[in-house]
């Protein structure tokens, strides 16, 4: 294959995996309470800021030996995930749960309000400009240095890292939702909260757990983002949020595999548009695709699964 195309695919895939991590959070929440959780992208943004702060505080820098680095990054990952999960479930408790029986518009507006609050928290915390972080995971081409291929195509450790975090998380999540008792409760609640309640499912608890999982994913995505993209900024949640939500819709909202597929497809669309068209039109193309998908195939590429109620 043409090296340029291959390179663009690699770039698209690694971005797509990060979109997918965020998109899973949207899709889980939408699947269970049919709410576009506008604040989710901003939870992710705060996660990336927290991860950045912790990485700096722990002194994770380039050149440290690999075991220490991996160990510290794992600790940061756990703390960030715990923090964003707590934040997300608190948001649910304060802003959404009281509105469980209000008209649909109410929690959505509340989510938009929450999103603005969180963005401003990020703005006050880190200021208006991008905050950078150095490459801890070396940006070295694996293909030439490790495998010894003679090629211009670059696949870096950073890109492998995004895959190494995202794919196990997706597998774990699928297992959780499809095989565990709690997962069954989630699916039941998604299908019909009232009946699920009558059958003995603690609906409030199940929804809270969904928000905890979504928050953990946002935290993990935040860390991956800071290590892969090396920068964060207060309105990052809005940028990623739009892409991630589009991914979720693209794949079929409520469908976990769909969110990942949607993320990857969107990553590729972004990369190919930047590469072969013009970067200033990419956002217009992404939203054009979104509108087209919704018009022609509202259930997304893989259909809605978690909650089958199109």
């Amino acid at each position: 294959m043409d090296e340029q195309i291959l390179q663009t695919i690699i770039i698209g895939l690694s971005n797509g995996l990060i979109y997918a991590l965020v998109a899973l959070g949207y899709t889980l929440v939408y699947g269970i309470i049919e709410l576009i959780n506008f604040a989710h992208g901003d939870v992710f943004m705060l996660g990336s800021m927290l991860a950045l702060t912790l990485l700096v505080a722990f002194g994770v820098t380039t050149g440290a030996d690999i075991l220490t680095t991996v160990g510290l990054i794992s600790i940061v990952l756990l703390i960030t995930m715990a923090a964003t999960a707590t934040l997300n479930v608190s948001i649910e408790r304060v802003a959404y749960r009281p509105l469980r029986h209000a008209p649909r518009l109410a929690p959505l507006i509340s989510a938009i309000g929450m999103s603005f609050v969180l963005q401003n928290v990020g703005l006050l915390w880190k200021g208006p400009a991008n905050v950078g972080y150095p490459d801890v995971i070396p940006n070295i081409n694996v293909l030439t240095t490790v495998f010894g291929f003679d090629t211009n195509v670059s696949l870096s450790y950073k890109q492998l890292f995004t895959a190494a975090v995202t794919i196990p998380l997706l597998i774990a999540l699928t297992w959780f939702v499809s095989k565990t008792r709690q997962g069954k409760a989630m699916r039941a609640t998604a299908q019909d909260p009232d009946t699920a309640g009558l059958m003995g499912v603690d609906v409030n608890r199940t929804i809270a757990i969904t928000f905890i999982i979504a928050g953990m994913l946002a935290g993990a995505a935040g860390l991956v983002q800071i290590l892969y993209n090396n920068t964060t900024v207060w309105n990052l949640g809005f940028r990623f949020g739009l892409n991630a939500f589009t991914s979720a819709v693209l794949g079929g909202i409520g469908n976990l595999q769909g969110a990942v597929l949607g993320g990857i497809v969107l990553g590729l669309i972004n990369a190919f548009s930047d590469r072969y068209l013009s970067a200033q039109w990419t956002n217009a193309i992404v939203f054009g695709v979104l509108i087209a998908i919704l018009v022609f195939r509202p259930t997304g590429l893989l259909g809605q699964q978690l909650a089958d109620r199109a």
Partner: protein
Amino acid sequence: MTSIIDPIERGGSGGLSAWVGHLVDTVVSWPRAYRHAYRRAPRRTVLLTILVILILVYPLLNRFLLQPISRGFPLPIPDDTTVVFMLIFATMAVGLNIVIGFAGLLDLGYVAFYALGAYTAAYLASPHWSTLSIVLFTDLPAGFPGIHLPFFIIFWAAALVAATFGVLLGAPTLRLRGDYLAIVTLGFGEIVPIFFKNLVNVNFELGPIKLVNANITGGPLGINPIDAPSFFGIKFGVINGFAPVYLAMAVVLLCIVIARNLERSRMGRAWMAIREDEIAAEMMGVNTVRTKLLAFGLGASFAGFAGALQASYQGATTSDFFMFATSILVVIMIILGGIGNIWGVILGAIVVQYVDKTLLGWVGQRLNDFGEASGNTFLEQINPSSFSFLLLGLALVAMMRFRPEGFLPSRQRAAELHSAPPDQVIASPGVTDDVIGFEQPLEGGPGAAELAELDPDAVDPNANVGRAEPRSGAEPDAIDPRPEGDR
């Protein structure tokens, strides 16, 4: 009293002439309606009259009394530009209220129509197309470069363009579920400014169309200058002091009249029926797609009015003015003010603009002065304006939780939002009751409807007895977050 008869019913399918006739009737019947209102509630009518007079003289009061006082003793008074923007946003709030408040369609990209209106106005009244020279009904010399049409034409053209795009966007997407529609509109709201920003220095070739370095939208510079509105030689631009405030007031008044009439028309009742229960509405013979499309298009046309006013008043327009935050700002205004109630959303627009543009800045300056006087560096540096979106976000969350119907609610929405306990959720919706509820205003007879003509819903509990009563009781479906078909 002809005004109480639904124009659409009278004119069969509702032609333009029927509407115009209806508007004329409404205006002609004002003195009589006023006497009625006075006889029924003298105190309230007098208070309202005083309020209206105060609003009308405010720009003069501001110019000749408040501003001079303010020089020695700073007051948090909005200046003319801020007042005009309050009214521009009030126009948009009234329009978005048709879409969200009446028809229950969440539009998160309303700014796109505002932008389309503004650019339409800019194209029709500026030297932008400098190779052309079309000068009609304006005081410019013939041969002046560009297209220059008078405000009363571009005003309607802007609304028409915005409405057309509203219908074009709505036609394929309005059958989507509510929150999908929100996302589609959000996407549209992002796309439109991208086009306006990027279509400059365009090099494009497709068959016979060949563009070389074409300047279609002015790019990031936007279009500047745009002719100020002008009537009988009086100009209403940003440099003309308080005169444009009256133009903006006239626009808002026009919007109020149109929106009030729409609300009371058969169409208005159909919108609310759809908002409450789309399937029930459809069963009762409402053409839901056409009805929703009309709400969307009419709502968009109000944003077109606002856009034309913005461009002509400011004398410039650029894509930077049309951001997602603006869409959300209008949503915030109608939520805070009282969704579904025209007076509420106007109040919301005025209050939000006032707080954002005047009050926070004033408070900041007082704090800074105080900080400087007392040597407190924190107070000296603080800028409360930068927290306005934080405050608005908190206000949204708090409002949704504690007063979701807004400050000046439509009683109908208030009844819905203060919902019955959840165990009633599964109860049968009682479709027939619901729709009969909407037919009430007609059956309420001329008296009630006629009195209602002047009465803001929120203030007088008796104005719309017919419509409101059935709602306060069992309100089955509105409580359930999901549409009928989802259960």
